[in-house]
Every structure is written in C-alpha cells, then in structure tokens.
C-alpha cells in the first residue's frame, strides 16, 4: 500500500536563523511514511522541531531540502496546495486563535465556504459534524462562550466538515484543562475508528501512548519510530531527549531494582497493575 504521507530527507530552517550552522535546522533529514488509517504520535520536547514537522504536513511550511508528498502530491508545487489542504486538515494548539467565524455555525462553515460547497449541502454537513463532536444545538453560540475543550472540538468539527483523509493535531491538547484534554483525546480516537488518519503532535508520553505508533523527534531528527507497544519494551534513556520517563516505566524499573520479577514487556499502567496482582496471588 502506498503511504498517504511520504517524507523523504526533508529539512527545514527558519529564515531568521539562516546560518550554515547545521544545529539551526529545525528539522533535518527526516524520513517518515504514514499509512492510511494510522494513529500516529509525534513526540518530542519543546523546540525539538515537531511543530515545524507538523506544519510541513499540509504545506504551511515547505521543505528547504528533501520532499514532502501527500498522496503523491509534492507540497512544493503551488497548484497542489489547495488539494493538499483538503486531504490534510489541521487542529492547532491555541483554541482561540483558530476560530474565524463569529458563531459556531459560521466557523464550521468557514472551510466549506473556501471549498465552494453549495449552501444547502453546507447546512447539512455543519449539522452532521456538530453532532459528531457533541456540539449539537450550539450552532448559534458565540465562540467566546465555549470552554477550551468545546473550542477545540469546534476546531475539529471545522476540519472534519471538509472531509479530510488525515488530521494533524499540533499540540491541540496542551492548552486545555484535564477535562478538555480527555474530550479531545476521545475525539481523536473516534476519528481514528472512523477511518481517518490521525497524527498527534505532543510532548506528553501519556498522550502518545494512545497512538498505535510513536515517532520521537529530538533536535530536528527522528530518533525512534516504532509501534507504541514496542517502544516501552526496551529500556530507554528518556532524559536524553528531555522527555519525562513514563510513570509506569519508572515504577517498573524501581520494582525490578528491588528484585521483583516484573516482566520487561509491560507497556502500560494497567498491565503493570495486573502483573503485580498476578505476582501477589502467586506468593
């Protein structure tokens, strides 16, 4: 199967940092393929280049070297831009700064208006997606009356109304309270189940664990790219990428140090709890 997103040797550096010094490349020599229907997390600390990478996925930033292709369309070709933005939707970090419309309905319709969808069809789709994200009956509400989680769900509604194949969440949960975060994470899961390719950019390992596959980016390079289950099997030095060690990994390591025969393959908190119960009932 041909991947829906194919990144080949891609690099990007911001204009203001145009020195030959390689350390200033925000993204460097990235190779990444994303398959249709995948749930992928791109994880990295602040300044790792993960947001730059995200913005290269729908041609908001164009690679300075290498190529980014979306369904075979090169992002550097201007005539592809409109099509690419229909294929790859994007939800940003700040809930307030991505809502254009004066009311909920207007905002969901914004992307559709850009696509030139006829008004009758638009009304239908707006209703449909508002149902889908759980904002039914709020068509006429003003954006500033919504909670953070609702605003992000509104942003998601605006994106899915355009029926994209891929949705990139660029740290879309980092400015939310725990309730809002759970709402958005659930929306991601639902989208993935409905067949949309979900790419979640995050610095939180806990959130990355929801994904099927995790890509770790540090200093603009891809450091790891593997199924999330595998990633936590082998011992990793998370601190080398300025990432926090996941709680269950930390706990597992300390238990091992104490001489408890916990299995190395544990990939989540629940499994660890289960393992502890198992060990306890054996003694």
């Amino acid at each position, binding site marked *: 199967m041909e991947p829906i997103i194919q990144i080949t040797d891609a690099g990007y550096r911001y204009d203001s940092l145009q020195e030959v010094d390689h350390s200033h490349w925000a993204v460097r020599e990235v190779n990444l393929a994303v398959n249709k229907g995948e749930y992928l997390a791109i994880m990295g600390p602040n300044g790792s280049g993960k947001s730059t990478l995200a913005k290269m996925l729908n041609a908001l930033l164009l690679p300075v070297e290498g190529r980014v292709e979306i369904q075979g369309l090169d992002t550097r070709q201007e005539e592809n831009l409109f099509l690419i933005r229909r294929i790859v939707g994007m939800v940003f970090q700040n809930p307030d700064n991505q809502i254009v419309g004066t009311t909920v309905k*207007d905002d969901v319709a914004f992307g559709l208006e850009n696509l*030139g969808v006829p008004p009758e069809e638009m009304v239908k789709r707006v209703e449909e997606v508002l149902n889908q994200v759980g904002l039914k009956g709020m068509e006429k509400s003003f954006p500033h009356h919504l909670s953070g989680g609702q605003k992000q769900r509104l942003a998601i509604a605006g994106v899915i109304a355009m029926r994209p194949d891929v949705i990139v969440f660029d740290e879309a949960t980092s400015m939310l309270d725990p309730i809002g975060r759970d709402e958005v994470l659930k929306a991601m899961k639902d989208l993935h189940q409905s067949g949309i390719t979900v790419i979640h950019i995050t610095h939180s390992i806990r959130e990355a664990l929801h994904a099927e596959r995790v890509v770790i980016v540090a200093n603009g390079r891809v450091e790891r790219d593997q199924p999330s289950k595998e990633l936590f099997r082998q011992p990793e030095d998370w601190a080398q990428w300025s990432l926090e060690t996941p709680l269950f990994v930390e706990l597992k390591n300390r238990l091992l140090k104490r001489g408890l025969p916990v299995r190395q393959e544990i990939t989540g908190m629940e499994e660890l709890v289960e393992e502890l119960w198992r060990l306890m009932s054996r003694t």
Partner: protein
Amino acid sequence: MSSLTHPVLGQYIPGDSPLHRMDPRSKLVFIFIFMMIVFLANNAASYGLLLGMTVLGVQLSGISLSIIIRGLKPILYLISLTAVLHLWLTRGGNVLLQWGPITIYEEGVIQAIWISLRFLILVLMGTLLTLTTSPIDLTDGLERLLSPLSRFQVPVHEYALMMSISLRFIPTLWEEMDKIMKAQRARGADFTRGGLLKRAQSYIPVLIPLFISSFRRAEELALAMEARGYRGGEGRTRIRTLQYRKLDVFLLIVLGCLVVALLWLRSPS
C-alpha cells in the same frame, strides 16, 4: 467592560419584530436613502411626516422607548448645542426677544426647531438600524450590497472578512485585557488614581502586552485560515444566505411613497 453590560447607543438587541426580520440589505438601502431625503423637509407637514415615520419605526422595532431614550442621552447635548447656536445666529423675521447683545429672531426659533428635529430623526433612524440588526448581519448585508464594486478592484470581500474577524475577536481581546489588568494589579499597578495623564500612562503596561499578543493571534489565525483552504473571496460560497421577503418589498414601496409625499408636502423654495 461597561460596554458589555450597559446598553450603548445603537447596540444590537435581539428580538423578533418585523424590523428584526427584515433583510439587512433593504434596511441599509432604506436608511441610506432616508438620510438623504430628510433634507427635503422644510415645513411642519414634511417634518411631521418624517417624525411620524420614525415613531412608527420605533413602535415596530418592539424595543422599549426607555432603552432608546437612555441611549440618546449623549446625543441630546449635541442637539441642544446646535439649537442654541441657531437661535443665536440666525437672523430674519420679527424680533422676538432682545436682551443685551442677544437678539432672537422668529426665523431663528423656527430653524432651531427644524434642525433639532432633523438631527433627532437621523439619529433615531440610524439607531433603529443597529438596534435591530446584528453586526454580523450588517457586515453581511454591506458585503452583498457592495459586491458589484469588486469588479472595480475594490476588495469588498476582504473588508467584510476583516470586519467579521474583528467582531469575532472583540470579546476575546476584552477578556485578555481584563486578565492583563488583573496581572498588573497583582504587581501593584493602579488604574484608578491620579490625573487624566497619569491614568492614561498607567494603561501602557496593559496595552503593550495586549498589542503583542494580538499580533501573535493574527499570525496564528492567518495560518489556521490557510490550513483550512482560505485563498481569498474567489470561488467562495457562503452559508449565510440572504433573501428578500414580502416585508422587504413593502419597506421599499413605503420608501418610494415617502419620497413622493415629501416632494409634494415641502414648501417650494
């Protein structure tokens, strides 16, 4: 914050009156022409007709008179000032009063009354428009009325989008300003004491962060708009559809009758 809690002159009041239900385009056209034909009136009959229309409009808007009068208060000073100036400066007709250097002529009294009436009618009608039409509808109506101008390279769509984005962000920026003011107060800033200049100065530490964050917002919003496929007004459809109804046709007929009636009633000059 006061503007969000107290009624200001012409701030939209939601409702379901005939005036609310009219198409913003026909309201705009009506007001535009009305403001011009007000100047046709020059005697009791013609002013009476205009005043009658205005009172009828207020009645139809379903908005209580007290709200409208409260909103008019600041304008009343302006009206009284113009009236006094006319009383004092207009010459002609019999002298009604002579008191020191001030002479008041008959013509002056008449002019003062007419000018105040004209002013009042203009302001009231304008207020009625904004009281019964939400800013969003107003922007929308304006965009559509002016859209023929885009053929002459006038960026009508862009201006309308700028308007609606401003409307969208006013509450957001209010909230932010409130937050910054609280933050500065927590650091010992005082916005209430001192003279006018001092108080104005105390707002600088509020405005600078507000400006900086507005620029950042603008940048992020532009990016988000681009990501959602925005590429200007071309080939764009709209979810808000406007439709002329019977009420709108009626309004325009009334307008036509009004013009004819005014031309007939006014005294020839």
